[in-house]
């Protein structure tokens, strides 16, 4: 077994998970997507982050 097998397995798993999510999650809507840049958008940053304090 060589490293290429591990890399290929990771890429297949990643693609498989994205495919699973495409079926299970809400459909994508690019027309409701935020502007390309948060800076200058006038919108508050809303993405999740590991440093965000937990909900109270």
């Amino acid at each position: 077994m060589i490293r290429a097998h591990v890399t290929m397995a990771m890429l297949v798993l990643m693609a498989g998970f994205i495919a699973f999510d495409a079926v299970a999650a809400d459909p994508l809507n690019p027309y409701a997507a935020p502007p390309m840049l948060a800076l200058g958008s006038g919108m508050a940053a809303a993405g999740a982050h590991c440093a965000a304090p937990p909900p109270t």
Partner: protein
Amino acid sequence: MSQAASAAIPSSPGAASRLMALVAVAAVVLAVALFAGPRYGLLLLIGLGFGLTLEGFRFGFTGPWRRMILERDASGLLAQLICIAIVASLAFPLLAANGAELKGAHAPIGVAMIGGAFVFGAAMQIVLGCGSGTLVNAGSGNAIGAVALPFFAIGSFAGAYHLTWWTNLGSLPVMVLSGGQGLAITLIGLAAIAGLALILGKRGSHRLPARYWGAILALAGLAILHLVVAGQPWGVVYGLGLWVAKVVVGLGGDLSGSAFWSAPGNQAQVAASVLTDVTSLTDFGLIGGAALMAWWRAGLASPIGILPARAWVAVIVAGLVLGYSSRLAFGCNIGAFFSGIGTGSAHGWIWFVAAFAGSWVGVRIRPSLGLEARK
């Protein structure tokens, strides 16, 4: 050179193969931009940049700490501190002028946070990979990273599931350094650690190899671009836990028992496409970028090393611990140390001290787990 010897040397992919790979990557990024939104395509591209940088310059966070502890080689740690200083110098003014649109990696200091950082530091030395390191290692064909990654994700999900209980053990309010004064304190703090590392380090540690300078500049540029695009700093571990939460819900599981996963924002993110989650996109990019770079320079042909069973058990347990503890610690080397200090969070400094102490322990535990030759 003999025929046998030349056959053993893996050849780099040809120009046509490289061009096809670049076209394929561009097509994936474009597809995400078209179907999810331009911001998400750009975030995937930034993630690919992180992966290419970390693998291409052979730069990371765990190895330099290990070399500082074992060999007194401070050069890698110095490179990390310089990179954070550059990020802070640009991020502090951006955050000060655009507080409504941009946010830092700000978290509270607490009992569980400190304990989590210590344990994370120990576990990352066992698998030789932090949050970003495990993703890059897995992408570049490292079997230890690939085995640790799914358990890292399960641990991250579980840590987030229990996060409120842990933070209720005792936390201070979120403390943030901001503005010119905050930046000055941050830069002085980074300089003080660098000075201490140079005093404790062996002679010549101040001379950074050229590849470190490449990594410093590329990582700092990508980190600032990430802040501008996403409105938040680079992070890793939220996305890993989210992947498991999606699988649990997809299999009919119920997350209402967790204050964290049942919070409206997290419920919405579990229901939404993973291609709209900031950290998931950069995590995918880290794996893909590392894979691309490893393939590009013919680094995928080497055989996988054989390890004893107890080493694989250790990798699985360490993966779970990495994920769980990184949620309690409010981030890994990226979310807490790199982005936390770089955007003024006091918890980043405490995280660094606790995780470095944990690393000191982890470096000494590792040989007994069958992951390296015992000395």
